[in-house]
């Protein structure tokens, strides 16, 4: 029961914010790659930095224990290859997996087709898994899973750099938006 409520509430908030940001709209999402609308970078950077700083503060206050947080294993070759394919899929199809759900719920048939493709891609992967299993553990970095341990610096230092990087993304993005057609609005055709 608890997982049902927590899943529905947190997922509900996630979907609500994505839709409000305009991330169910493939024209807006792919405008990031055309560099005319920087909303995807701005929203993702802000969210990552906010959560990273928040987790750091909560760890210091003893509210969360860092060893209890899930950190994905450092199969960096697999992450790079998968990221490349998801990026290509985003540029061609107009969505990533999560945003295609948002697009479909706002009535977009192309998003529903993207989701069918997503399932098909999963079936193809499962079908040939024995011969490509090695790709999923490609390029393991054995020394560390997270940036602070890999660089031997504190998470505070990493977070400071990330805050500056986020400010930089906002400045650069807003400047490039002014030079181009600008952010995609909810009314634009």
């Amino acid at each position, binding site marked *: 029961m608890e*997982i*049902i409520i927590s*899943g*529905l509430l*947190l*997922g509900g908030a*996630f*979907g609500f914010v994505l*839709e*409000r*940001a*305009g991330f169910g*709209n493939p*024209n807006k999402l*792919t405008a990031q790659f055309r560099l005319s609308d920087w909303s995807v970078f701005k*929203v*993702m*950077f802000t*969210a*990552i930095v*906010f*959560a*990273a700083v928040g987790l750091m503060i909560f760890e210091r206050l003893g509210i*969360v224990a860092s060893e209890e947080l*899930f950190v994905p*294993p450092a*199969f*960096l070759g*697999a*992450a790079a290859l998968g*990221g*490349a*394919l*998801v990026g*290509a*899929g*985003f*540029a061609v*199809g*107009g969505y990533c997996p999560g945003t295609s*759900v*948002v697009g*479909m719920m706002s*009535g*977009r048939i*192309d998003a529903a*087709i*993207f*989701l069918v493709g*997503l*399932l098909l*891609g*999963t079936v193809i992967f*499962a079908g040939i*898994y024995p011969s490509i299993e090695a790709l*999923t553990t490609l390029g393991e970095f054995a020394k*560390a*899973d997270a940036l602070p341990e890999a660089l031997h610096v504190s998470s505070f230092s990493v977070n400071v750099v990330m805050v500056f990087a986020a400010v930089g993304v906002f400045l650069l993005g807003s400047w490039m938006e002014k030079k181009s057609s600008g952010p995609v*609005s*909810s009314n634009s055709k």
Partner: protein
Amino acid sequence: MSESSNTQLPQSYWNPLVAGLILGMVLLVTFVTTGHGLGATGFTTRFTAWMGMHIVPVATNANDYLGGMVEDGKPLSAWITWQVLGVALGALASAYFAHRIQFQMDGRKFLGGSKRPVTAMLGGVLAGFGARIAAGCTSGLGLSGGAVLSLAGFTFLCTFFAVGLLVSRFMKEEK
């Protein structure tokens, strides 16, 4: 594109800083309450296993990747199932109250024109396949993995954006 049954104009999208801060809060609360972040393809993979279990049970059971998920006969019994259902309901509520629900084939202008169904399908296949190699997608590995400062998360984001930028150069705009 076509006119909607909604007579009211859609509301404006949120300012990206506001949306980013609220998304960050949701992500932070998710980590504090569950120990992990938000995702999407964890569900679609389980859903694939669930469909396989009903359509081709023998092959699904024997499959090296999906077999483990259907062992107990309940591949959908997981937190991520409810979370993705929540995403769908939250997005529906948001779109409804912002007057943004519109049945349409969107994205034609930049993504293939009359071939839009093909680009949508192809993009989905690439993303679905790629997310299984990386064991995560933009949400699960990029966003959530970035928040815990993971090397895998940042690596994913770098190639995701680099290849996205590159591939989108080949998508012609319809005039």
